[in-house]
């Protein structure tokens, strides 16, 4: 049989790792709230987005086992993210280069 499908090794992540990841997630949630006290101007959104992405990576890597999963599942996940960015990119290009009177609200 052509085992093109890699047999997964049924990796079991130790309990301690789960607990550490959870602690890190709670810590990062505190950071998320804490950074809103500072004004980074245009970078506020970037900072919030960056912290959220770190948290998301922890959930993906450990809770969702993607760190120990096969390459194909990682490719599948990241292709979803890539095409989402694509949707945003072109919408943004259009919106940012339109020559219209900007809202004066």
């Amino acid at each position, binding site marked *: *049989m052509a085992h093109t*499908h*890699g*047999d*997964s090794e*049924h990796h*079991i*992540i130790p*309990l301690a790792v*789960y*607990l550490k*990841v*959870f602690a890190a*997630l*709670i810590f990062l*949630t505190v950071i*998320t*709230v804490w950074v*809103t006290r500072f*004004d980074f101007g245009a970078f*506020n*959104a970037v900072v*919030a*987005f960056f*912290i*959220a992405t770190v*948290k*998301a990576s922890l*959930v*993906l890597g*450990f*809770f*969702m086992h993607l760190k120990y*999963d*096969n390459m*194909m*599942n990682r490719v*599948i*996940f990241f*292709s*979803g*993210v890539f*095409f*989402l960015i694509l*949707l*945003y990119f072109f*919408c*943004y290009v259009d*919106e*940012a280069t339109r020559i219209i009177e*900007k*809202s004066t*609200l």
Partner: protein
Amino acid sequence: MSTAKTRTHHHAHHYESATHEYDTSKQGMWLFLVTEILMFGGLFVGYAYFHHIFPEIFKIGSTFTDWRLGAANTVVLLFSSLTMALGIYYTQMNDRSKARLMLLITILCGAVFMVIKYFEYSHKIHLGLMPGSWYTADAQAVLEHAKEKFPGLTEIPSNLPLYFSFYYMMTGLHGIHVMIGMGLIFWIWLRMGRGWYGKDHYTGVEGVGLFWHLIDLIWIYLFPLLYLVT
């Protein structure tokens, strides 16, 4: 709770082995998660798009969300993600009674999340902070409230309801997923009580777990977007 009885799982006829079936099912689940990401993604892109055109309405709108409730819900969901992961862990360890306890805690966390959400919703509905043309909030009261954070404000943008459209659509779709997730975990919990799942066969637990973590993942982004916009 009779977890003593163990049922053996026979893989479907078109697979060679249980591992083959497990790998394929997990891949199918990841493919499904991608569709979820892109579906929610449409709302995120819409948010970014309008945030770029009308940043004010998002700033003013977010003063009506209580970050403490949002943070509480974040912790609840993160904790439920931990218990879900532990549910899979104990299934892998063949300890079904601990695994079922973890699943039960996960469902409870989902319920707590929804209750907090309910209070948030009813508060906003009470103030008339509804989406689109259903918006009935008193303009003066909204201005007074927004002035607490933005003292220089003289006027409320006419399309402020758009923020609440995003708020309700995003949290609403997310909330529907939370409830579906709770239902699925309950189903797994029942089956485990009847002797299904164990160290050699936990595909269902893993799949539902992935779905639950995705719900958490989406909330991780929703929290700063809706509660902490500055």
